[in-house]
């Protein structure tokens, strides 16, 4: 797709956002589709929810306001009207009209200025919230793009035009409150709770899960982070499909764990040995292929 999607601005819209370059993978997200898992609908939403909600708070938006999630940066865009914007999550070089913004957490964008967000130094997912939010078609109540099912607005492309919601007062959150955690040295420790199927695993497998320094594999996306390392020995287990949650550490017959992220399927048939905590799953959502991950039981 080369032309992008044009969302017709609705009444009350006071501007537009035009994409010049979309980067590797940039999508519209809000906090996702909740309450529909029993119909087979994944939640979707940002891979790093904390950074996403922070971006919205910085520009005075309600936390669930649609904003942009980019993977490995590469986004360039202009606004038709002057607005505040916030950049959070994986820290990346940000320029306005080619001039480097020293602290991009809260940026004022003049009308027509070109905002460019480069490749992050650490982590992989950077968030851009614009004051007033971007407008996108809601599917089943949410503007989130779900990569598993294709629900929600298509990924951004060069030429995509999105409407902007009406500007609102920017609260001036102190910048020192604005930092969000990303795995700066490529090594992440994620806490997890045992269960629901930890009792299917023997002591050696449980020990291997926590003793191993896992590596994030190249087959990692918004559905799940695949880990490589010495495999657990459990092998194939017959388990009827059951509901799964974000953060679930699923062990397929290969013995190498998959940690479910935002676009995970609502049911799964492989045993889940543990679930990464709500806090630390955001960190896993920032990992890149090759990063190291240690899983430690939550106290």
């Amino acid at each position: 797709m080369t032309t992008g999607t044009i969302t017709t601005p609705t009444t009350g819209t006071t501007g537009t956002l035009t994409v010049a370059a979309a980067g590797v993978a940039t999508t519209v997200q809000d906090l996702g589709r909740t309450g529909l898992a029993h119909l087979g609908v994944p939640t979707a939403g940002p891979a790093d929810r904390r950074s996403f909600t922070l971006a919205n708070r910085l520009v005075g938006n309600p936390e669930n306001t649609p904003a942009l999630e980019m993977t490995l940066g590469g986004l360039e865009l202009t606004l038709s009207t002057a607005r505040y914007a916030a950049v959070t999550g994986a820290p990346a070089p940000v320029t306005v009209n080619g001039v480097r913004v020293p602290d991009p957490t809260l940026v004022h964008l003049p009308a027509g200025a070109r905002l460019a967000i480069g490749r992050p130094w650490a982590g992989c997912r950077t968030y851009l919230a614009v004051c007033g939010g971007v407008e996108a078609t809601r599917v089943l109540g949410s503007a989130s793009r779900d990569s598993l099912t294709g629900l929600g607005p298509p990924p951004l492309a060069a030429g995509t035009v999105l409407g902007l919601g009406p500007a609102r007062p920017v609260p001036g959150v102190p910048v020192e409150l604005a930092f969000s955690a990303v795995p700066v040295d490529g090594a992440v420790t994620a806490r997890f709770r045992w269960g629901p199927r930890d009792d299917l695993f023997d002591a050696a497998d449980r020990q291997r899960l926590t003793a191993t320094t896992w590596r994030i594999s190249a087959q990692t996306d918004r559905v799940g982070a695949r880990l490589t390392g010495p495999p657990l020995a459990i092998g194939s287990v017959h388990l009827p499909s059951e509901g799964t949650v974000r953060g679930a550490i699923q062990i397929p017959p290969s013995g190498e764990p998959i940690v479910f992220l935002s676009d995970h399927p609502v049911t799964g048939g492989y045993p889940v040995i543990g679930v990464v905590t709500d806090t630390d799953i955001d960190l896993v959502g920032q990992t890149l292929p090759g990063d190291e991950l240690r899983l430690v039981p939550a106290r």
Partner: protein
Amino acid sequence: MTGAAAGGARLRRAGDRGWLVECPGHRPAELALAIRAASWAAELREVVPAATTVLVVAEHAAAMERLAGRLTRLLDAAAVGDGGDGIRSGPRAAARTVVIPVRYDGADLDAVAARAGLTRAEAVRRHTGGRHTVAFFGFAPGFAYLDGLPEPLRLPRLDSPRARVPAGVVAIAGNQTVVYPGGTPGGWHQIGVTTTRLWDVDATPPNRLAIGDRVVFEAVGP
């Protein structure tokens, strides 16, 4: 981390906000309806019945212990069938019967009939005569697992799934039937097609079928 409840049911911890309820002796669909009907259901984010379990996800992690107590009491009441807020006496969504006309000309129908030792017409008759019930949704939006496939038609899934199955294809595997919502791969045996759309993201609600509904398949066309 697990806890025992009445009747062999167990609560298994599923993260900061989740309990996976194992409920031998109960149909997960009915247990899910009872949980949704409870006065405290507003504290829940998701209630996801599957083959033998119900996943319950709370809005707030702080409510997990209280939620465990409530689930345990609900299961206890169900086990003795008392007049409390148990499963047998709890309010239930009226089970509906949904008729789905099917043109039985699927690519796998002949192979299914042969493996079942039936003629093609007999295979169709067995399928239309089955007591099909919506057990749960999973795999993809609107993918409803319908229990109740009659015995001679029960087969394991295809060795190799088809890459993309269009909306409306009626297919069987194990003791279940599915009407594909469209746009997914599929490893089930395709026996027919229906023009009835059971899943429409633009409709409210998007699902024409609800858990617990009866489904009657009706043979139509050439």
